[in-house]
């Protein structure tokens, strides 16, 4: 339990600490140290969960089980590696004068704030707090998106704010409806939003209310997941903010929104006794997947392109959770990990690449392999990994997902496969000229720390070749919770 407290406390303390010292030259080290502390405590927490099983805190405010423990760990880990990257990246930004001291303080403070809200969202047992935290995550990042104060970044920030704000309000309405359904059957109304309690009574809640609630929740949290047609904020926000933030947005925030949707699906499914929620998720997933795949062909900005790739993958995961069944669910859970590791690695590389080329415009990024081989190769390998090539983990999860699709919905498999090919073509047609070819004159290597990328890709590689037993068991537990039976 102490580990949990520490995990939440260190970023919380970081918010305030860095708000004051964020402009110092050593702030990046402090940031990294805090993130490392968070990661270590998260690791301890994970060990605790591994040894004792699910943890419910005394006041029932926090609940850690197989489903969220690995996401907490992932969060802390990606937060830490991105902090490593963020150091040299922001140094470069300061050097070229894009940010000043005040904004650096804001940046570091909000970085921690973002991590805090996400850890909070993951660890809380209260669905209301879940909403509050996710809204908090929006608020923490909205100023990061517009950090550069350019027309585009302000536009992106405003759109992000309004679309997500409006969207998340709908999620709150959904939460109220769930609470409404719960208080009728739960004796203590104060506990009406506790996940642990609700889960026990899931079957008794009213189907009509819950189906209505799920629509609001899906549309609401779906906005944050980036499901088409609610996704419009996502490419803007990803492309205009500082790259470390894009990395954690894409790698973590989307996951957490999806986590929220899935948590609610677990409540709704037994009450409805039908596949309604799953069908809606499949529809959204398929739509997101195909639209994002097509839009990859029309990109001019490198970060924008990869944010569409995020939409595509979130769509894929939503689709998989929608299918239900152990295989698809396990695949989707695994995909959450590998996608966030890979995508954050890609964004880190892209960050360096944009510094190398001095622009985010893909037409001006050329011949990275020549100018800075590690960045070029990192981008290439990362994209291969995200495109689902073995031996990377994305391949494994997509394999599971496809087989599950063919088993349950064979007629959906061909469009899925087609979409995959379209998305791949979109990614690679833009990637190739950036990485290969002759670099333009004046393109020079920059200070880059590629260790995070290396570590991420190695992990993804590892997951592609063999999944550690611990992780497999957690995923399996989560699968059992979600669909009633596991794969192991």
């Amino acid at each position: 339990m102490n580990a949990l407290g520490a995990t939440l406390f260190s970023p919380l303390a970081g918010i305030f600490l860095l708000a004051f010292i964020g402009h110092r030259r050593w702030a990046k080290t402090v940031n990294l140290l805090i993130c490392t502390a968070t990661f270590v405590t998260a690791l301890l927490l994970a060990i605790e969960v591994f040894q004792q099983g699910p943890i419910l805190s005394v006041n029932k405010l926090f609940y850690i089980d197989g489903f969220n423990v690995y996401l907490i760990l992932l969060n802390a880990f990606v937060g830490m590696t991105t902090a490593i990257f963020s150091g040299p990246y922001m140094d470069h930004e300061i050097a070229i004068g894009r940010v000043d001291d005040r904004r650096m303080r804001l940046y570091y403070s909000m970085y921690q704030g973002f991590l805090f809200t996400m850890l909070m969202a993951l660890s809380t047992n209260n669905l209301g707090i879940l909403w509050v935290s996710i809204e908090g995550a929006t608020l923490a990042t909205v100023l990061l998106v517009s950090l550069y104060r350019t027309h585009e970044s302000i536009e992106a920030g405003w759109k992000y704010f309004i679309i997500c704000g409006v969207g998340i309000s709908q999620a709150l309405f959904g939460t109220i409806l769930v609470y409404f359904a719960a208080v009728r059957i739960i004796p203590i109304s104060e506990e009406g939003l506790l996940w642990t309690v609700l889960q026990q009574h899931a079957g008794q809640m009213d189907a009509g209310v819950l189906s209505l609630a799920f629509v609001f929740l899906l549309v609401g949290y779906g906005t944050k997941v980036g499901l088409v047609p609610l996704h419009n904020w996502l490419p803007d926000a990803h492309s205009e903010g500082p790259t470390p933030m894009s990395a954690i947005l894409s790698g973590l925030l989307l996951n957490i929104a999806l986590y929220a949707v899935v948590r609610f699906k677990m409540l709704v499914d037994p009450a409805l006794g039908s596949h309604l929620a799953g069908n809606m998720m499949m529809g959204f997933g398929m739509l997101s997947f195909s639209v994002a795949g097509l839009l990859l062909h029309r990109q001019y900005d490198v970060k924008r392109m990869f944010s569409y790739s995020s939409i595509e993958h979130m769509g894929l995961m939503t689709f998989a959770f929608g299918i239900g069944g152990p295989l698809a669910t396990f695949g989707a859970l695994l995909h959450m990990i590998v996608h966030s590791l890979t995508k954050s690695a890609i964004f880190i590389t892209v960050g360096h690449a944009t510094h190398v080329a001095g622009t985010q415009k893909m037409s001006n990024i050329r011949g990275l392999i020549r100018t800075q081989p590690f960045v070029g190769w990192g981008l290439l390998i990362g994209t291969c990994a995200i495109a689902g090539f073995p031996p990377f983990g994305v391949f494994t999860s997509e394999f599971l997902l496809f087989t599950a699709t063919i088993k349950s919905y064979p007629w959906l498999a061909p469009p899925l496969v087609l979409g995959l090919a379209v998305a791949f073509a979109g990614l690679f047609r833009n990637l190739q000229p950036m990485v290969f070819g002759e670099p333009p004159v004046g393109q020079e290597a920059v200070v880059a720390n590629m260790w995070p990328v290396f570590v991420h890709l190695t992990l993804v590689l590892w997951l592609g070749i063999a999944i550690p037993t611990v992780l497999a068991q957690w995923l399996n537990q989560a699968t059992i919770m979600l669909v009633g039976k596991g794969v192991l």
Partner: protein
Amino acid sequence: MDFTMALIIAESAVLLTLLSSVVPLFFLRRPYLQGRLSFLLLGISGLTACSGGGMALMLRTSEQMVLPIGLPWLHVFLRLDPLSGFFLFIVGLITFIAACYGPAYIREYIGGKLSIGPLTLFTGLFVGGMFLVLLAADAFSFMLAWELMSVASYFLVVFQHEKPENRHAAFIYLLMAVVGGAFLFLAYGVLAGFSDGFSFVAMKAAHLSPTWATIAFTFAFIGFGLKAGIVPLHVWLPLAHPVAPSHISAMMSGVMLKVAVYGFIRFVYDLLGNVTWQWGVVVLLVGSASAVLGVLYALMQHDLKRLLAYHSVENIGIIYIGLGLSMIFYATHHLEIAALALIAALYHCLNHALFKSLLFFGAGAILQQSRQHDMEKMGGLIKKMPVTAYCFLVGCISISALPPFNGFVSEWLTFQAALQGPLLKSGILGAMIPVAAAMLALTGALAAACFVKVYGIVFLGQARSPEILEAQDPSFGMQLSQILLAVCCLGFGIFPTWTVRAINGIPEGLLGTGLSSATDNGWLWLTPVNPQTASYGAPAVFFGILVCWLLVYVFLHPLRSDNRIRIAPAWDCGFGPLNSRMQYTASAFAMPIRRIFSFVWLIFEKVEPAGPGGRAHYILRIDDRLWLMLYVPIGKLMLKIAERTSYIQGGNLRVYLCYSFFTLLFLLWVIV
């Protein structure tokens, strides 16, 4: 007797390839050492794979092993049976020979702008992927290895990435590989849907309804066909093969396509079982089309490696003809004939691997020496690089299916299978098979025409560009590998009985019946059905040619009053003196065939008349009709849809909110 001996050997080959890709990375600063080390390990792994595969083929056992990696509930199954052993042998052999060829070939890259690190890394992964595909015995590891093979070869294709056309080729290649892989996903998915688990054993036990079986077959046919390069899925092949380094082209063309054929055989015969004759007809027709169109397209090429790539399409077509025949006979329970056709197809796999690698090695040697791709700039190389020239000649004769070399044997066996067509009761099939045979005959003749063109233009006559005059035979390793392959071509042509006997284990395993009759009459006679029907004594034929030659030579001697040979300028009907521009060009050579089959290509031909004081120009452009008819519209359509889709991201916030709003209303309306 340790039963898994061969499998362990094969696995060590895989490990060696991985070593060969990883270890040299520690010597990035010393490229010579790096290259040599990589090829050394690769060569050893090739030999190891060869021996493992050969062992499995000879012992005719099936060995299985489970490795505790992969997914937690789905471990990696590996299996080595005669079928995979045979292909492992082919891949191993070519890998070994390519490893002899490689060190000298990549020397030109060392010190250049390109680091050879990626080359060594991905060559190892590529070969390792191929080995693993052959060993995999569950869908997951098969797909893993398959995609690894694809993506590693992509990096090899794109290795010389300065040229935009190379990148384009690599992109198309990888895209097609992805599509192919996706189809395989679907194919295995259908099987997995009907069985409990992903292992091949479980899939074999699955009972599919005929409809589902046909669906699975279709997916597999397209998926493997994309990799194998059957028409009309071949378009990546002539793009990708020419731009890779030549030893890689040789491996891609020579063995990677065979791995696809392996996958197809494994899927259809082993996993799917219950072959229907309709599938066979499809395979037969597509095979015939690939063979004829492949060779016709090849005839029109001027780029040597591109031409060879198109010939791969042709040869894959021939292999598919064999497979189609085999499936038809298998479905109609003529097991012996089915075995014969299968053996013919497999034999052709081996042969094609040998002579296509040989030809690519030759093309690579020319490329390295003269830096010329374009045949129209070559000529007279036989005097500059004789070893390469004679080895290339062997390759040309073999690929043209002329006796006594190996290409002839497999085509002969295919013909023999086709001639058993009247055994079938169905008139439609009976009529179809002769047409396929006719196509095969046409293919063989056109291939010969094409290689007369290639050899005549490239090696004979006079040099058409100054670079050619600088050329000389490449270094020892490159010569050795060509000589080895040439000897193999001859050897497998002269001693077909031993080969057929070795392959025989495969139909025994897959069809339950072998073709023992083929080799019953001793090592001299190849008698596929029975001695009365047909026989071919390859060693005797070879011996006969030698004896005739010798006799003619000896008998002509006493007739000669004067043995001297006078060297003089060519007579040329008295027009003389010759220069290199007076020679027939490659496009001129192919002109009559271009006229005759003009409907196949999109030909743009124009003569620009000479302006005042200028020269007249002849412009000829020949395009792949299938590319323009099939692929360009698909690409355009997709971009059009993408453009339309882009309106969803129009930039106006209120419109975005409308989406959200109406989505909500719509869903609420649906729910209530």
